[in-house]
Protein backbone atom coordinates (compact mmCIF):
# COMPACT_ATOMS: atom_id res chain seq x y z
CA UNK A 1 0.00 0.00 0.00
CA UNK A 2 1.35 3.37 -0.95
CA UNK A 3 0.83 6.23 1.45
CA UNK A 4 2.70 9.49 1.50
CA UNK A 5 3.41 11.36 4.69
CA UNK A 6 0.45 13.70 4.21
CA UNK A 7 -1.98 10.81 3.89
CA UNK A 8 -0.45 9.00 6.86
CA UNK A 9 -0.98 11.97 9.11
CA UNK A 10 -4.56 12.30 7.93
CA UNK A 11 -5.55 8.66 8.44
CA UNK A 12 -3.44 7.11 11.19
CA UNK A 13 -5.44 3.87 11.58
CA UNK A 14 -5.76 2.87 7.92
CA UNK A 15 -2.19 1.66 7.43
CA UNK A 16 -2.31 -0.66 10.43
CA UNK A 17 -5.75 -1.93 9.39
CA UNK A 18 -4.50 -2.62 5.87
CA UNK A 19 -1.38 -4.34 7.17
CA UNK A 20 -3.43 -6.64 9.46
CA UNK A 21 -5.91 -7.47 6.70
CA UNK A 22 -3.33 -8.29 4.06
CA UNK A 23 -1.33 -10.38 6.55
CA UNK A 24 -4.46 -12.51 7.11
CA UNK A 25 -5.00 -12.70 3.36
CA UNK A 26 -1.51 -14.15 2.90
CA UNK A 27 -2.10 -16.69 5.67
CA UNK A 28 -5.40 -17.69 3.99
CA UNK A 29 -3.65 -18.04 0.63
CA UNK A 30 -0.89 -20.24 2.05
CA UNK A 31 -3.34 -22.49 3.94
CA UNK A 32 -5.67 -22.87 0.95
CA UNK A 33 -2.97 -23.56 -1.61
CA UNK A 34 -0.47 -25.61 0.38
CA UNK A 35 -2.61 -28.73 0.92
CA UNK A 36 -3.38 -28.89 -2.83
CA UNK A 37 0.25 -29.56 -3.67
CA UNK A 38 0.15 -32.54 -1.30
CA UNK A 39 -3.16 -33.95 -2.56
CA UNK A 40 -2.46 -33.74 -6.33
CA UNK A 41 -4.08 -36.27 -8.67
CA UNK A 42 -4.83 -36.66 -12.42
CA UNK A 43 -7.82 -34.87 -13.97
CA UNK A 44 -10.48 -37.12 -15.57
CA UNK A 45 -11.01 -36.64 -19.33
CA UNK A 46 -14.36 -35.34 -20.61
CA UNK A 47 -15.85 -35.51 -24.11
CA UNK A 48 -18.93 -33.86 -25.56
CA UNK A 49 -20.61 -34.91 -28.80
CA UNK A 50 -21.68 -31.84 -30.77
CA UNK A 51 -24.92 -32.71 -32.57
CA UNK A 52 -27.99 -30.48 -32.51
CA UNK A 53 -31.23 -32.42 -32.09
CA UNK A 54 -33.42 -31.48 -35.07
CA UNK A 55 -36.01 -34.27 -34.70
CA UNK A 56 -38.56 -32.01 -33.04
CA UNK A 57 -38.01 -29.19 -35.52
CA UNK A 58 -39.84 -28.97 -38.82
CA UNK A 59 -38.80 -25.68 -40.37
CA UNK A 60 -37.96 -22.07 -39.57
CA UNK A 61 -35.04 -20.18 -38.09
CA UNK A 62 -34.30 -22.63 -35.26
CA UNK A 63 -34.18 -25.56 -37.69
CA UNK A 64 -31.90 -23.58 -40.02
CA UNK A 65 -29.51 -22.82 -37.13
CA UNK A 66 -29.48 -26.45 -36.00
CA UNK A 67 -28.75 -27.61 -39.57
CA UNK A 68 -25.93 -25.07 -39.92
CA UNK A 69 -24.50 -26.27 -36.59
CA UNK A 70 -24.58 -29.89 -37.74
CA UNK A 71 -23.20 -29.11 -41.19
CA UNK A 72 -20.26 -26.81 -40.51
CA UNK A 73 -19.05 -25.57 -37.13
CA UNK A 74 -16.72 -22.98 -38.69
CA UNK A 75 -19.63 -21.35 -40.48
CA UNK A 76 -21.64 -21.61 -37.27
CA UNK A 77 -18.83 -19.81 -35.37
CA UNK A 78 -18.76 -17.00 -37.95
CA UNK A 79 -22.57 -16.80 -37.85
CA UNK A 80 -22.52 -16.45 -34.03
CA UNK A 81 -20.03 -13.55 -34.19
CA UNK A 82 -21.94 -11.89 -37.06
CA UNK A 83 -25.29 -12.08 -35.27
CA UNK A 84 -23.90 -10.81 -31.98
CA UNK A 85 -22.07 -7.88 -33.60
CA UNK A 86 -25.08 -6.94 -35.75
CA UNK A 87 -27.48 -7.17 -32.80
CA UNK A 88 -25.05 -5.18 -30.62
CA UNK A 89 -24.82 -2.38 -33.18
CA UNK A 90 -28.56 -2.24 -33.94
CA UNK A 91 -29.59 -2.40 -30.25
CA UNK A 92 -26.80 -0.02 -29.18
CA UNK A 93 -27.74 2.74 -31.61
CA UNK A 94 -31.47 1.94 -31.23
CA UNK A 95 -31.53 2.26 -27.43
CA UNK A 96 -29.37 5.38 -27.71
CA UNK A 97 -32.09 7.03 -29.77
CA UNK A 98 -34.78 5.93 -27.33
CA UNK A 99 -32.85 7.39 -24.37
CA UNK A 100 -32.20 10.65 -26.25
CA UNK A 101 -35.92 10.95 -26.95
CA UNK A 102 -36.53 10.81 -23.16
CA UNK A 103 -34.68 14.12 -22.84
CA UNK A 104 -31.61 12.84 -20.95
CA UNK A 105 -28.45 14.84 -21.67
CA UNK A 106 -26.01 12.41 -23.32
CA UNK A 107 -23.11 14.78 -24.00
CA UNK A 108 -19.45 14.23 -23.05
CA UNK A 109 -18.71 13.80 -19.34
CA UNK A 110 -16.05 15.47 -17.24
CA UNK A 111 -13.97 13.00 -15.29
CA UNK A 112 -14.17 13.77 -11.56
CA UNK A 113 -13.48 11.21 -8.86
Amino acid at each position, binding site marked *: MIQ*DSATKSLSPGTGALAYRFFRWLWVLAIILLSN*EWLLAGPKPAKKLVNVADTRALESGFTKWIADLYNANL*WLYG*LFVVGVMVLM*GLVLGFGFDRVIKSL*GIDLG*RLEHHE
Partner: protein
Amino acid sequence: MEMFNVWMPIAGMQFNVLLLLLIGFTVGVCGGFFGIGGAWIVTPALNIFGFPMPYAIGTDLAHMGGKSIVSTIRHGKFGNVDIRLGISMIVGTTVGMELGAKLVMWLERLGLADSVIRKAYVVFLAFIGSYVLLDYIKYTRRQRLARKQMAPAPHADTIAHRLQRLRIPPMIYFKASGITCSIWLPILVGLTTGIVASVLGVGGGFIRMPALIYLVGCPTLVAVGTDLFEVMITGAYGAFTYGIKGRVEIIAAMWMLLGAAAGAQMGTIAVKYVRGYSIRLLFAVTIFIACASVLLKQLELQIASATLILTAGIAISLVILILLVRGVRKERETRRAGSGDTRL
Protein backbone atom coordinates in the same frame (compact mmCIF):
# COMPACT_ATOMS: atom_id res chain seq x y z
CA MET B 1 -44.77 -19.88 -17.40
CA GLU B 2 -44.41 -22.83 -19.79
CA MET B 3 -45.66 -20.70 -22.68
CA PHE B 4 -42.36 -18.80 -22.49
CA ASN B 5 -40.28 -21.97 -22.88
CA VAL B 6 -38.30 -22.13 -26.11
CA TRP B 7 -36.48 -25.12 -27.58
CA MET B 8 -32.71 -24.67 -27.59
CA PRO B 9 -31.52 -26.99 -30.37
CA ILE B 10 -27.78 -26.81 -29.59
CA ALA B 11 -28.03 -27.39 -25.82
CA GLY B 12 -30.91 -29.83 -26.46
CA MET B 13 -33.34 -28.49 -23.88
CA GLN B 14 -36.31 -26.20 -23.24
CA PHE B 15 -35.46 -22.88 -21.55
CA ASN B 16 -37.57 -20.00 -20.32
CA VAL B 17 -36.92 -16.82 -22.33
CA LEU B 18 -38.10 -14.55 -19.47
CA LEU B 19 -35.31 -15.99 -17.38
CA LEU B 20 -32.82 -15.31 -20.17
CA LEU B 21 -34.05 -11.73 -20.47
CA LEU B 22 -33.74 -11.25 -16.69
CA ILE B 23 -30.22 -12.71 -16.51
CA GLY B 24 -29.19 -10.63 -19.54
CA PHE B 25 -30.70 -7.44 -18.14
CA THR B 26 -29.03 -7.92 -14.73
CA VAL B 27 -25.60 -8.55 -16.15
CA GLY B 28 -26.09 -5.75 -18.68
CA VAL B 29 -26.73 -3.19 -15.93
CA CYS B 30 -23.71 -4.36 -13.88
CA GLY B 31 -21.49 -4.64 -16.97
CA GLY B 32 -22.26 -1.16 -18.26
CA PHE B 33 -21.77 0.36 -14.81
CA PHE B 34 -18.59 -1.45 -13.73
CA GLY B 35 -17.02 -2.12 -17.14
CA ILE B 36 -17.02 -5.89 -16.76
CA GLY B 37 -18.25 -8.83 -18.80
CA GLY B 38 -20.07 -10.42 -15.87
CA ALA B 39 -19.31 -14.08 -16.64
CA TRP B 40 -19.30 -14.80 -12.91
CA ILE B 41 -23.02 -13.92 -12.80
CA VAL B 42 -24.20 -15.43 -16.10
CA THR B 43 -22.38 -18.75 -16.10
CA PRO B 44 -23.58 -19.98 -12.67
CA ALA B 45 -27.04 -18.47 -13.28
CA LEU B 46 -27.48 -20.41 -16.54
CA ASN B 47 -25.99 -23.51 -15.00
CA ILE B 48 -28.28 -23.49 -11.94
CA PHE B 49 -31.33 -23.43 -14.24
CA GLY B 50 -30.11 -26.49 -16.09
CA PHE B 51 -27.85 -25.20 -18.83
CA PRO B 52 -24.89 -27.58 -19.28
CA MET B 53 -21.68 -25.82 -18.13
CA PRO B 54 -19.73 -25.83 -21.46
CA TYR B 55 -22.73 -24.24 -23.23
CA ALA B 56 -23.23 -21.78 -20.35
CA ILE B 57 -19.65 -20.48 -20.78
CA GLY B 58 -19.80 -20.27 -24.58
CA THR B 59 -23.25 -18.68 -24.64
CA ASP B 60 -22.20 -16.14 -22.03
CA LEU B 61 -19.10 -15.17 -24.03
CA ALA B 62 -21.16 -14.79 -27.21
CA HIS B 63 -23.73 -12.44 -25.67
CA MET B 64 -20.91 -10.59 -23.86
CA GLY B 65 -19.44 -9.48 -27.19
CA GLY B 66 -22.76 -7.98 -28.34
CA LYS B 67 -23.56 -6.42 -24.97
CA SER B 68 -20.14 -4.77 -24.74
CA ILE B 69 -20.72 -3.15 -28.15
CA VAL B 70 -23.85 -1.48 -26.72
CA SER B 71 -21.95 -0.21 -23.63
CA THR B 72 -18.85 0.81 -25.60
CA ILE B 73 -20.92 2.90 -28.04
CA ARG B 74 -22.46 4.83 -25.13
CA HIS B 75 -19.24 5.10 -23.10
CA GLY B 76 -17.48 6.25 -26.29
CA LYS B 77 -19.99 9.07 -26.72
CA PHE B 78 -19.44 10.04 -23.06
CA GLY B 79 -15.68 10.28 -23.81
CA ASN B 80 -14.92 7.36 -21.49
CA VAL B 81 -13.14 5.10 -24.00
CA ASP B 82 -9.40 5.54 -24.53
CA ILE B 83 -8.98 3.55 -27.73
CA ARG B 84 -5.19 3.99 -27.86
CA LEU B 85 -4.88 2.73 -24.29
CA GLY B 86 -7.31 -0.11 -24.98
CA ILE B 87 -5.29 -1.28 -28.00
CA SER B 88 -2.01 -1.13 -26.04
CA MET B 89 -3.61 -3.22 -23.31
CA ILE B 90 -4.99 -5.75 -25.81
CA VAL B 91 -1.45 -6.42 -27.11
CA GLY B 92 -0.30 -7.30 -23.59
CA THR B 93 -3.51 -9.14 -22.71
CA THR B 94 -3.30 -11.44 -25.76
CA VAL B 95 0.28 -12.49 -24.96
CA GLY B 96 -0.63 -12.78 -21.27
CA MET B 97 -3.62 -15.02 -22.04
CA GLU B 98 -1.33 -17.38 -24.00
CA LEU B 99 1.26 -17.47 -21.21
CA GLY B 100 -1.53 -18.05 -18.68
CA ALA B 101 -2.89 -20.95 -20.77
CA LYS B 102 0.59 -22.53 -20.77
CA LEU B 103 0.76 -22.12 -16.99
CA VAL B 104 -2.63 -23.82 -16.65
CA MET B 105 -1.45 -26.73 -18.83
CA TRP B 106 1.62 -27.07 -16.62
CA LEU B 107 -0.62 -27.12 -13.54
CA GLU B 108 -2.82 -29.72 -15.26
CA ARG B 109 0.18 -31.95 -15.88
CA LEU B 110 0.85 -31.77 -12.15
CA GLY B 111 -2.84 -32.55 -11.53
CA LEU B 112 -3.28 -29.30 -9.62
CA ALA B 113 -5.12 -27.04 -12.05
CA ASP B 114 -8.73 -27.28 -10.82
CA SER B 115 -8.37 -26.87 -7.09
CA VAL B 116 -5.40 -24.50 -7.12
CA ILE B 117 -7.12 -22.18 -9.57
CA ARG B 118 -10.38 -22.08 -7.63
CA LYS B 119 -8.59 -21.30 -4.38
CA ALA B 120 -6.32 -18.73 -6.00
CA TYR B 121 -9.52 -17.19 -7.39
CA VAL B 122 -10.92 -16.72 -3.84
CA VAL B 123 -7.71 -15.12 -2.59
CA PHE B 124 -7.45 -12.89 -5.63
CA LEU B 125 -11.06 -11.67 -5.36
CA ALA B 126 -10.56 -10.98 -1.64
CA PHE B 127 -7.39 -9.03 -2.45
CA ILE B 128 -9.01 -6.84 -5.14
CA GLY B 129 -12.12 -6.20 -3.02
CA SER B 130 -10.08 -5.24 0.04
CA TYR B 131 -7.69 -3.02 -1.89
CA VAL B 132 -10.53 -1.07 -3.53
CA LEU B 133 -12.44 -0.84 -0.24
CA LEU B 134 -9.41 0.39 1.73
CA ASP B 135 -8.70 2.96 -0.96
CA TYR B 136 -12.29 4.16 -0.65
CA ILE B 137 -12.00 4.42 3.15
CA LYS B 138 -8.74 6.41 2.86
CA TYR B 139 -10.33 8.69 0.27
CA THR B 140 -13.40 9.45 2.42
CA ARG B 141 -11.18 10.12 5.48
CA ARG B 142 -9.07 12.56 3.45
CA GLN B 143 -12.22 14.30 2.19
CA ARG B 144 -13.74 14.52 5.69
CA LEU B 145 -10.54 15.97 7.15
CA ALA B 146 -10.21 18.44 4.29
CA ARG B 147 -13.78 19.61 4.90
CA LYS B 148 -13.00 20.09 8.61
CA GLN B 149 -9.85 22.08 7.79
CA MET B 150 -11.68 23.99 5.04
CA ALA B 151 -8.79 23.13 2.66
CA PRO B 152 -8.60 21.03 -0.52
CA ALA B 153 -7.90 17.33 0.09
CA PRO B 154 -4.21 16.42 -0.44
CA HIS B 155 -3.37 14.09 -3.35
CA ALA B 156 -1.67 10.86 -2.35
CA ASP B 157 1.33 9.66 -4.39
CA THR B 158 -0.14 6.45 -5.76
CA ILE B 159 1.47 3.40 -7.38
CA ALA B 160 0.13 4.68 -10.72
CA HIS B 161 1.88 8.04 -10.28
CA ARG B 162 5.17 6.30 -9.60
CA LEU B 163 4.75 3.98 -12.59
CA GLN B 164 3.88 6.93 -14.84
CA ARG B 165 7.16 8.59 -13.86
CA LEU B 166 9.19 5.68 -15.33
CA ARG B 167 10.63 7.25 -18.50
CA ILE B 168 11.08 4.19 -20.72
CA PRO B 169 10.65 5.26 -24.38
CA PRO B 170 8.42 5.54 -26.28
CA MET B 171 6.35 7.82 -24.03
CA ILE B 172 2.71 8.21 -25.08
CA TYR B 173 -0.01 10.69 -24.22
CA PHE B 174 -3.39 9.00 -23.70
CA LYS B 175 -5.84 11.76 -24.45
CA ALA B 176 -9.09 10.41 -22.96
CA SER B 177 -7.29 9.33 -19.77
CA GLY B 178 -5.28 12.56 -19.61
CA ILE B 179 -2.08 10.71 -18.72
CA THR B 180 1.39 10.44 -20.24
CA CYS B 181 3.37 7.29 -19.61
CA SER B 182 5.61 4.75 -21.24
CA ILE B 183 3.79 2.53 -23.77
CA TRP B 184 5.29 -0.40 -21.85
CA LEU B 185 3.16 0.39 -18.78
CA PRO B 186 -0.26 -0.53 -20.31
CA ILE B 187 1.34 -3.39 -22.25
CA LEU B 188 2.85 -4.86 -19.08
CA VAL B 189 -0.36 -4.28 -17.10
CA GLY B 190 -2.29 -6.00 -19.93
CA LEU B 191 0.22 -8.86 -19.90
CA THR B 192 -0.11 -9.37 -16.14
CA THR B 193 -3.89 -9.13 -16.08
CA GLY B 194 -4.00 -11.43 -19.13
CA ILE B 195 -1.95 -14.09 -17.34
CA VAL B 196 -4.11 -13.85 -14.21
CA ALA B 197 -7.38 -13.89 -16.21
CA SER B 198 -6.26 -16.87 -18.26
CA VAL B 199 -5.13 -18.85 -15.21
CA LEU B 200 -8.38 -18.11 -13.39
CA GLY B 201 -10.38 -18.94 -16.55
CA VAL B 202 -12.26 -15.63 -16.63
CA GLY B 203 -12.62 -12.78 -19.11
CA GLY B 204 -10.69 -10.49 -16.79
CA GLY B 205 -12.85 -7.36 -16.76
CA PHE B 206 -12.95 -7.29 -12.97
CA ILE B 207 -9.12 -7.45 -12.91
CA ARG B 208 -8.45 -4.91 -15.68
CA MET B 209 -10.84 -2.24 -14.39
CA PRO B 210 -9.02 -1.80 -11.03
CA ALA B 211 -5.65 -2.33 -12.76
CA LEU B 212 -6.42 0.57 -15.11
CA ILE B 213 -7.22 2.77 -12.10
CA TYR B 214 -4.51 1.72 -9.65
CA LEU B 215 -1.62 0.80 -11.96
CA VAL B 216 -2.11 2.92 -15.10
CA GLY B 217 -3.78 5.86 -13.32
CA CYS B 218 -6.96 6.25 -15.40
CA PRO B 219 -9.98 8.15 -14.06
CA THR B 220 -12.62 5.61 -12.94
CA LEU B 221 -15.01 6.33 -15.82
CA VAL B 222 -12.26 5.94 -18.45
CA ALA B 223 -11.20 2.68 -16.78
CA VAL B 224 -14.81 1.44 -17.06
CA GLY B 225 -15.18 2.50 -20.72
CA THR B 226 -11.76 1.31 -21.86
CA ASP B 227 -12.21 -2.02 -20.12
CA LEU B 228 -15.51 -2.51 -21.93
CA PHE B 229 -13.75 -1.79 -25.23
CA GLU B 230 -11.42 -4.69 -24.41
CA VAL B 231 -14.27 -6.93 -23.22
CA MET B 232 -15.95 -6.25 -26.60
CA ILE B 233 -12.93 -7.58 -28.51
CA THR B 234 -12.28 -10.55 -26.22
CA GLY B 235 -16.03 -11.34 -26.18
CA ALA B 236 -16.15 -11.42 -30.00
CA TYR B 237 -13.08 -13.67 -30.09
CA GLY B 238 -14.58 -15.88 -27.36
CA ALA B 239 -17.85 -16.12 -29.32
CA PHE B 240 -15.96 -17.31 -32.37
CA THR B 241 -13.66 -19.77 -30.65
CA TYR B 242 -16.49 -21.31 -28.57
CA GLY B 243 -18.75 -21.20 -31.65
CA ILE B 244 -16.43 -23.32 -33.78
CA LYS B 245 -16.14 -25.75 -30.89
CA GLY B 246 -19.94 -26.01 -30.90
CA ARG B 247 -20.38 -24.62 -27.38
CA VAL B 248 -22.60 -21.59 -28.12
CA GLU B 249 -26.39 -21.83 -27.86
CA ILE B 250 -27.14 -18.96 -30.23
CA ILE B 251 -30.90 -18.81 -29.49
CA ALA B 252 -30.20 -18.30 -25.76
CA ALA B 253 -27.43 -15.79 -26.55
CA MET B 254 -29.81 -13.74 -28.71
CA TRP B 255 -32.50 -13.60 -26.01
CA MET B 256 -29.94 -12.71 -23.36
CA LEU B 257 -28.45 -10.01 -25.57
CA LEU B 258 -31.88 -8.45 -25.97
CA GLY B 259 -32.18 -8.04 -22.18
CA ALA B 260 -28.49 -7.17 -21.78
CA ALA B 261 -28.63 -4.38 -24.37
CA ALA B 262 -31.40 -2.61 -22.44
CA GLY B 263 -29.57 -3.18 -19.14
CA ALA B 264 -26.19 -2.11 -20.55
CA GLN B 265 -27.65 1.15 -21.81
CA MET B 266 -29.10 1.92 -18.37
CA GLY B 267 -25.99 0.82 -16.45
CA THR B 268 -23.79 2.93 -18.72
CA ILE B 269 -25.95 6.05 -18.38
CA ALA B 270 -25.99 5.58 -14.58
CA VAL B 271 -22.23 6.33 -14.44
CA LYS B 272 -23.10 9.89 -15.46
CA TYR B 273 -24.85 10.46 -12.13
CA VAL B 274 -22.31 9.00 -9.70
CA ARG B 275 -18.81 9.93 -8.64
CA GLY B 276 -15.89 7.69 -9.54
CA TYR B 277 -15.39 6.64 -5.92
CA SER B 278 -19.05 5.56 -5.60
CA ILE B 279 -18.46 3.18 -8.53
CA ARG B 280 -15.35 1.87 -6.77
CA LEU B 281 -17.28 1.25 -3.52
CA LEU B 282 -20.08 -0.66 -5.25
CA PHE B 283 -17.46 -2.56 -7.24
CA ALA B 284 -15.71 -3.64 -4.01
CA VAL B 285 -19.03 -4.87 -2.57
CA THR B 286 -19.74 -6.81 -5.78
CA ILE B 287 -16.29 -8.42 -5.69
CA PHE B 288 -16.78 -9.52 -2.05
CA ILE B 289 -20.09 -11.14 -2.98
CA ALA B 290 -18.42 -12.91 -5.91
CA CYS B 291 -15.73 -14.07 -3.49
CA ALA B 292 -18.35 -15.46 -1.07
CA SER B 293 -20.04 -17.24 -3.98
CA VAL B 294 -16.79 -18.91 -5.07
CA LEU B 295 -16.13 -19.93 -1.45
CA LEU B 296 -19.58 -21.60 -1.30
CA LYS B 297 -18.68 -23.42 -4.52
CA GLN B 298 -15.49 -24.65 -2.86
CA LEU B 299 -17.64 -26.09 -0.10
CA GLU B 300 -19.64 -28.00 -2.76
CA LEU B 301 -22.70 -25.79 -2.15
CA GLN B 302 -23.32 -25.22 -5.85
CA ILE B 303 -26.96 -24.15 -5.60
CA ALA B 304 -26.32 -21.77 -2.69
CA SER B 305 -23.39 -20.29 -4.59
CA ALA B 306 -25.35 -19.68 -7.81
CA THR B 307 -28.39 -18.40 -5.89
CA LEU B 308 -26.22 -15.94 -3.96
CA ILE B 309 -24.57 -14.55 -7.07
CA LEU B 310 -27.82 -14.26 -9.02
CA THR B 311 -29.67 -12.60 -6.11
CA ALA B 312 -26.75 -10.26 -5.47
CA GLY B 313 -26.56 -9.43 -9.18
CA ILE B 314 -30.25 -8.48 -9.21
CA ALA B 315 -29.85 -6.44 -5.97
CA ILE B 316 -26.80 -4.55 -7.30
CA SER B 317 -28.63 -3.85 -10.58
CA LEU B 318 -31.53 -2.44 -8.57
CA VAL B 319 -29.16 -0.15 -6.64
CA ILE B 320 -27.67 1.06 -9.95
CA LEU B 321 -31.15 1.63 -11.41
CA ILE B 322 -32.17 3.60 -8.31
CA LEU B 323 -29.04 5.77 -8.72
CA LEU B 324 -29.99 6.27 -12.37
CA VAL B 325 -33.58 7.31 -11.59
CA ARG B 326 -32.45 9.65 -8.80
CA GLY B 327 -29.82 11.15 -11.09
CA VAL B 328 -32.29 11.75 -13.94
CA ARG B 329 -34.75 13.38 -11.52
CA LYS B 330 -32.03 15.59 -10.05
CA GLU B 331 -30.85 16.53 -13.55
CA ARG B 332 -34.36 17.59 -14.54
CA GLU B 333 -34.81 19.62 -11.36
CA THR B 334 -31.39 21.25 -11.82
CA ARG B 335 -32.18 22.05 -15.44
CA ARG B 336 -35.40 23.73 -14.35
CA ALA B 337 -33.57 25.71 -11.64
CA GLY B 338 -30.41 26.53 -13.69
CA SER B 339 -27.07 24.70 -14.03
CA GLY B 340 -25.34 22.57 -11.38
CA ASP B 341 -23.72 19.26 -10.47
CA THR B 342 -26.09 16.30 -10.90
CA ARG B 343 -23.79 13.59 -9.56
CA LEU B 344 -24.84 11.70 -6.42
